[in-house]
């Protein structure tokens, strides 16, 4: 009788142990599950592997982002038209042509010796954007003035051989340029812009 009671008692005790053990498990699970902040990694002690994972993800995202941005840069066919070769024999002395280069207008002016002399004489005259004529032409080819045909005020194309300096006059707001395409009068802030070009011999020039 006592033995059975003891056995029952032992069984009950065991069950109580198990229950307590189960409760412990349940408690810990309950804690982790119901309390999101406990379940989440302790912010002050992030696991190393999680840091590595996030860093790898960020690195991967950056590598993915580059092509998505670079695709907006000029495509190969646009870049192919970046350079243009022009035959200068078409431009008579004293004349100019306006041609399209990279979809922008460009003046190619064949200057007369008088125009060159006038430009050089004014090299040190007071002007908004001082520049010498020599710095705006290539050595050995001073008769060729090649500039962007966009008025530096608001972008209109100036008219040839107008204005008191014999250079250009912009019809939009009256800017006056001299024979070296330097701004002399009017609202434009800068001289007509220069750009990269190269002479391939005396009769050919490569723009861009």
């Amino acid at each position, binding site marked *: 009788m006592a033995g059975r009671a003891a056995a029952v008692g032992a069984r009950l005790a065991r069950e109580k142990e198990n229950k307590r053990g189960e409760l412990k498990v349940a408690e810990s*699970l309950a804690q*982790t*599950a119901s309390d999101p902040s406990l*379940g989440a*990694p302790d912010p002050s002690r992030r*696991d190393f*592997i*999680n840091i*590595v*994972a996030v860093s*790898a*993800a960020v690195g*991967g995202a950056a*590598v993915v982002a580059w092509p998505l941005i670079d695709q907006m840069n000029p495509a*190969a*066919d646009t*870049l*192919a*038209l*970046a*350079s243009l*070769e022009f035959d200068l024999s*078409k431009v008579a002395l004293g004349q100019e042509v306006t*041609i399209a280069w990279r979809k922008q207008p460009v003046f190619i002016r064949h200057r007369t010796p008088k125009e060159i002399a006038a430009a050089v004489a004014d090299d040190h005259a007071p002007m908004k954007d001082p520049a010498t004529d020599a710095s705006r032409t290539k050595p050995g080819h001073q008769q060729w003035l090649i500039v962007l045909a966009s008025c530096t005020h608001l972008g209109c194309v100036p008219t040839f051989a107008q204005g008191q300096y014999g250079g250009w006059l912009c019809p939009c707001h009256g800017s006056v340029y001299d024979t070296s395409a330097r701004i002399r009068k009017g609202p434009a802030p800068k001289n007509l812009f220069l750009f990269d070009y190269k002479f391939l011999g005396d009769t050919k020039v490569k723009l861009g």
Partner: protein
Amino acid sequence: MARNLSILALALGALCLAGPALADSNELAPPDIHWSFEGPFGSYDQEQLQRGYKVYREVCATCHSMNMVAFRNLGDPGGPFWDPKYPNPNDNPVVKTIAADYQVADIDRDTGDAIKRPGTSADYFPAPFANEPAARASNSGALPPDMSLLAKAREGGAAYIYGIVTGDTAGAPHGLIVPVGKYYDPYMAGDMSAFWKGDPARTPIGGFIAMPPPLIANKVAYDDGTKATLKQEAKDVAAFLQWAADPKMEQRKQMGLGVMIFLLLFSAILYASYRKVWESVGH
């Protein structure tokens, strides 16, 4: 879970074993040739591309346009005339010379007349005929397809092209009535039953193509001294056309290698992270 998956796998397996019945293949399958560009690590053989370009230039370009390929593409990385000294193909002298050899349509800037001028690297390969009706008129009503994408536009790609240009050299089997202006090619799709006068059970497979056999041995003299057999010419021009259709292949496979390595490592890291996050939770 495992049981469900295995039931599904068995069902799928049964379906696969039932066999994808081949569509009535009425032409020879493209020949199985080893190409330098096949497989995940394949690349173009620059010398083969140069030979293939020569074959295109001297044989195919008479009738076939390639209007999506520009001269500058010849100097792109992976292309026949790529030179690491000229990363910008527009500066590549070989490219500029090739372009200048062609006459390209343009208008005279002064008079507005239609003229022909030497090509620049920015120009595209000019078409041999002004338009489709002109092309058909010169080829008995058939239109020679543009070659820019030909290798992508045909099942079998370069191998198919190789088969087509070598297959029609043998001539038609006796008993096959070949219409005027057409040529028999076993690699071409078609139905020969109406043209076969022999035993119906032995109807030849293949079809008719409007192009006369384009290649013979030594039709082109290779600059690098390679023997210009029919098979060699066919292989080289097929490789060149594969390049024309897929010029970015090498960059694509290189990037693919980097991406696969990254993703495998990244997946492993994420799996470790996942196990770490879940270790305190039973599921």
